[in-house]
């Protein structure tokens, strides 16, 4: 499938600021699941660094604006050819040993409810193949955390989302990571895009899911929010230990003032993209 992406992030400031500096993880890397046909990142008035491929195989790029600005806009657009690999990340060049993804951060630190969830899901399954255990955990998380936009914020931790029993894709991913770690499986957070409607109608298409490492198979994506593994509707941007670590945009406003953020992400199969 060929997907087109148009992702705009606009910052509006109450008073002009000194500029911004950001580290972007906004360029899909090549794997058997995805191939970039064309891609561009545009920030008017900015200096862009050369994209670098980090140890996790993701493209990272510095962008900075160093002049007083009242408004800054980051526009990402491109076309990606995707293939369904049943969620398996193959042909993705990376150097980080999977075992490095066994550690927790503040956002993926489990609480009692999460460890209970894991014990329940793993009951009598200790000898089951790792892949089966991973599927069971993903299903348990989907069951335990209802999809409910607005129930959580960007800073919500896995433990908080679990207590709340509700959240969005970010929370599902972080809870699943906490569960996988408890089960001894390396797991990480993935940020990307999802083409969610068959007819290509515009929709909020930023998405996140978890990857769990299965010995012998490698990294496999689990989208607990949608109870599936990533397929040809998914575009993978980058990974990290949690939502903050894997964020597509990490930035700072220089001499900051109140900012207003406006994000729009459109993903559609080629030929079906709507005029804005």
């Amino acid at each position, binding site marked *: 499938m060929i997907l087109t992406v148009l992702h705009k992030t606009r910052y509006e400031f109450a008073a002009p600021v000194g500029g911004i500096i950001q*580290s972007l993880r906004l360029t899909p890397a090549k794997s058997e699941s995805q191939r970039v046909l064309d891609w561009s990142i545009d920030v008017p008035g900015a*200096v862009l660094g050369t994209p670098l491929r980090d*140890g996790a195989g993701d493209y990272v790029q510095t962008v900075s604006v160093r002049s007083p600005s009242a408004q800054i806009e980051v526009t990402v657009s491109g076309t990606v050819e995707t293939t369904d690999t049943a969620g398996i990340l193959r042909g993705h060049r990376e150097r*980080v*040993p999977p075992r*490095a993804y066994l*550690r927790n951060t503040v956002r993926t630190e489990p609480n009692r409810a999460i460890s209970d969830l894991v014990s329940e899901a793993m009951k009598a399954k200790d000898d089951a193949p790792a892949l089966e255990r991973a599927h069971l955990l993903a299903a348990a998380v989907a069951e335990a955390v209802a999809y409910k936009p607005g129930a959580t914020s960007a800073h919500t931790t896995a433990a908080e989302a679990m207590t709340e029993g509700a959240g969005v894709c970010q929370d599902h991913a972080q809870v699943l990571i906490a569960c996988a770690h408890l089960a001894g499986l390396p797991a990480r957070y993935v940020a990307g895009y999802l083409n969610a409607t068959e007819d290509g109608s515009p929709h909020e298409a930023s998405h996140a899911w978890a990857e769990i490492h299965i010995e012998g198979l490698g990294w496999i994506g689990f989208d607990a929010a949608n109870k599936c593994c990533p397929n040809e509707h998914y575009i993978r941007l980058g990974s990290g*230990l949690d939502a903050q670590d894997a964020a597509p945009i990490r930035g*700072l406003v220089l001499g900051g003032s109140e900012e207003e953020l406006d994000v729009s992400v459109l993903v559609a199969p080629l030929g079906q993209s709507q005029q804005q």
Partner: protein
Amino acid sequence: MAEPYFNEMYDAAGLRTPYQMLEGWHQNMPAEFRALKQAEAEDLFRRYGITFAVYGEGGDPDRLIPFDMFPRVFTSEEWRKLERGIKQRARALNAFLSDVYDRGEIIRAGRIPADLVYRNEAYEIAVAGFRPPLGVFSHIVGIDLVRTGADQFYVLEDNCRTPSGVSYMLENREVMMRMFPHLFQENRVAPVDGYARLLKRTLASVAPEKCDRDPKVVLLTPGHFNSAYYEHSFLADLMGIEMVEGQDLFVEGDFCYMRTTEGPQKVDVIYRRIDDAFLDPLCFRPDSALGVPGLMNVYRSGGVTICSAPGAGVADDKAIYTYVPEMVRFYLGEAPILENVPTWQCAKADDLKYVQEHIAELVIKEVHGSGGYGMLVGPKSDKATIEAFAAKLAANPSNYIAQPTLALSTCPTFVNEGIAPRHVDLRPYCLVGRDIELVPGGLTRVALTEGSLVVNSSQGGGVKDTWVIAEE
């Protein structure tokens, strides 16, 4: 009565060779003269501004670290062996870092448990797969040594991040030379003042490949409220480089620049004296105001070199320490010259059991602790202290390691009544760049309280000038 500790000046056979020239010196020194000299030394230190502020203790930030005028002396034979051992260890630690951020051969070979490395807090995923210039991660390796006999030295711990204290090594010598010039005229004390030049050369030697000019080296300090700020400014000044704070640097495109009165100036090498977590808010702690936003991207694309490399701390973790002799054998194919202190990992059930049974005889330390805090010296503690510590140990065993209480050697030290033996340790500073360098000397710390084995300056320790007698 024989002392239970090795006395570096007087052993069973009497006065030891390296101290021969000092016996007459201190014996012929009238008490008033000594008091005068001691006051002069303090005045000199205060004038130079060498003070030591202890984090979180409050009190006088301008407090002086106590200086003992009685030098500690090594013969050149003793030093030669130490030097070979220290350099060997520094090479092995760097080989280990190169390896674990690359293919991890030592783990694949089953010589070190994977989780000890990859699950270690200090292992930085952000630099996995990245090879810094010349493959060097730890450019300044401080190795803490203790001595228990004429020929017995043990490594207490390795410091691969940003070991501090080298300014004392340099200033102690400076002060001694000003106060007792005749001692240096009459003895062949090897100089240490080449350290700054060697450090600068080491740092310049690891400039990025992209750098096609005389490398611009800067020292990055957390600021003047930091307890080691004096050392930062002292070293920067000796090297003739700028001492910068995070706010003095900024990233644009593929490079890092310094704000100067003539506009932005490109920086090639950053000798950082701040922790990994604070280096770059866009990569590590987002609330850090001490670092430089975007720095890690510039670093990883070869636009600037950070010394020591982010992630170097995984080599000096107390849990990894046990495996350093193994690293020497694995990477260098050599037998380790310096021994480790036998260490029990409380994370291991058998070790924990032994430690709990022998708690009153052991020294127990936090895995990530430093500065002499959070440790128990069993034989020097009362029952209540031991019991309180035992409870902490039981609650979180993997946070602790234990070592036998070492019979630390003593050096003569000036006390009210004349001289008396006091326990000492030694931290030499090994420089790793294109070459591996070690100046003949280091920082000798001395536990000024009678019988105390804790030499940390935050716990009432002092410092001494450390001499290596040059070869004839």
